[in-house]
């Protein structure tokens, strides 16, 4: 597809997704508040109640935005359908989890099923491109094992990062900016357009979710958004690049899980990684058995406010996104 059409697609999806998400987020928030679906802002002294599950606006914004692309370019229907399907299945699992919390062992298993649209529509290439190695043939293991793991890991890693005001939208926004650029450069038209949609949704949602948050995305938003990142890595054949871009998320999830020795719900973990001080700042817990999360690592040098912690997460994500660019470059050099 010529570059002009590629750019047109990106602009159309970006504007549509941004506007729909931006308009819908306060409407969803009002509905959630009316139905008393609210969560406590635990990192504030006031512990104010904020509307939950507003990630629904992200799902709707992305669905409508990317469908507008299919109306313009019908040839992209399969990849777009696979992307929307994955997003909505993971979002639905998050929706159920928000209303009736699922066990920490069941949730990753269920999110793995969100890869079904990609699998059934055949929008994957079982030759993942590995840096320094190039494409490797995994025609059997890729669809059976790696595809479900990719979606489960990305959706749950992003979900575990959604702990502070703006942390999920801010960090995923940075990753989707980098991924859009990488996919655009590599000529992966449809995944680049879908990634631009994700960037737009994150920007619109960040406006409401940033410190001090007026809305919470809930698992509806974070599982859906994480699965969308996983889907982009598969559709755009940038699996290794995505792993590098998600280093802070993997750091947060893996260390959290490793230090509490297994999959456990936040509610099941007695030792908290941080403590809220009287002045509203957070301090890293000195408790040996508390999980070493990214927040606790950022707080190692001393107490910080929630806004500074999220800025720290975004800085680390910007570093990992630059490394993702370098990984892509190494991969391209390796191929030529």
């Amino acid at each position, binding site marked *: 597809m010529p570059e002009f059409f590629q750019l047109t697609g990106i602009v159309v999806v970006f504007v549509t997704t941004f506007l729909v998400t931006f308009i819908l987020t306060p409407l969803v928030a009002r509905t959630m508040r009316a139905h008393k679906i609210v969560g406590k802002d635990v990192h504030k002294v006031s512990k104010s109640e904020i509307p939950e599950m507003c990630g629904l606006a992200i799902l709707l914004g992305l669905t409508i935005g990317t469908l507008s692309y299919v109306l313009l370019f019908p040839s992209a229907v399969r990849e777009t359908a696979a992307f929307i399907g994955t997003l909505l299945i993971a979002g639905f699992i998050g929706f159920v989890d928000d209303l009736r919390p699922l066990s920490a062992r069941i949730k990753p298993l269920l999110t793995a099923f969100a890869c079904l649209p990609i699998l059934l529509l055949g929008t994957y290439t079982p030759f993942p491109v590995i840096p320094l*190695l190039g494409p490797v043939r995994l025609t*059997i293991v890729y669809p059976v094992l*790696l595809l479900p793991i990719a979606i489960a890991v990305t959706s749950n890693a992003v979900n575990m990062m959604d702990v502070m005001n703006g942390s999920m939208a801010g960090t995923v926004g940075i990753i989707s900016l980098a991924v859009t650029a990488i996919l655009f450069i590599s000529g992966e038209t449809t995944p680049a357009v879908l990634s631009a949609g994700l960037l737009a949704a994150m920007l619109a949602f960040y406006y409401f979710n940033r410190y001090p948050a007026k809305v919470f995305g809930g698992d509806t938003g974070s599982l859906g958004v994480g699965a969308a990142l996983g889907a982009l890595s598969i559709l755009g054949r940038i699996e290794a690049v995505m792993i*590098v871009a998600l280093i802070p998320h993997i750091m947060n999830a893996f260390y959290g899980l490793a230090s509490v020795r297994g999959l456990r719900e936040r509610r099941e973990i007695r030792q908290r990684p941080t403590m809220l001080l009287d002045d509203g700042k957070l301090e890293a817990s000195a408790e040996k058995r508390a999980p070493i999360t990214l927040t606790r690592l950022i707080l190692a040098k*001393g107490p910080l406010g929630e806004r500074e912690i999220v800025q720290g997460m975004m800085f680390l994500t910007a570093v990992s996104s630059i490394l993702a660019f370098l990984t892509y470059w190494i991969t391209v050099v390796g191929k030529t």
Partner: protein
Amino acid sequence: MRNLIPLAAIEVFVWLILLLSTFLISKVAFAISFGDATLIQRVATETARVAASGVIILIWLLVWKRVTDSYFWRTVSRRKATA
């Protein structure tokens, strides 16, 4: 932001280890072959390659954890000592 430089350095370090891991995967894991004439041989080859790659990735994650753990506890104990 200056406080985050050690964490950014850890990111760069684990990225370099990741590249080293992919090099090892290419030399060790993808050297495994049980042939590809039959479906069983193909499944065995791919499974062995993924399993060997998984072990290398697990070692990568453990190295990463060791570095991060030592950074965290050293920083916390140094802060306690100066407080």
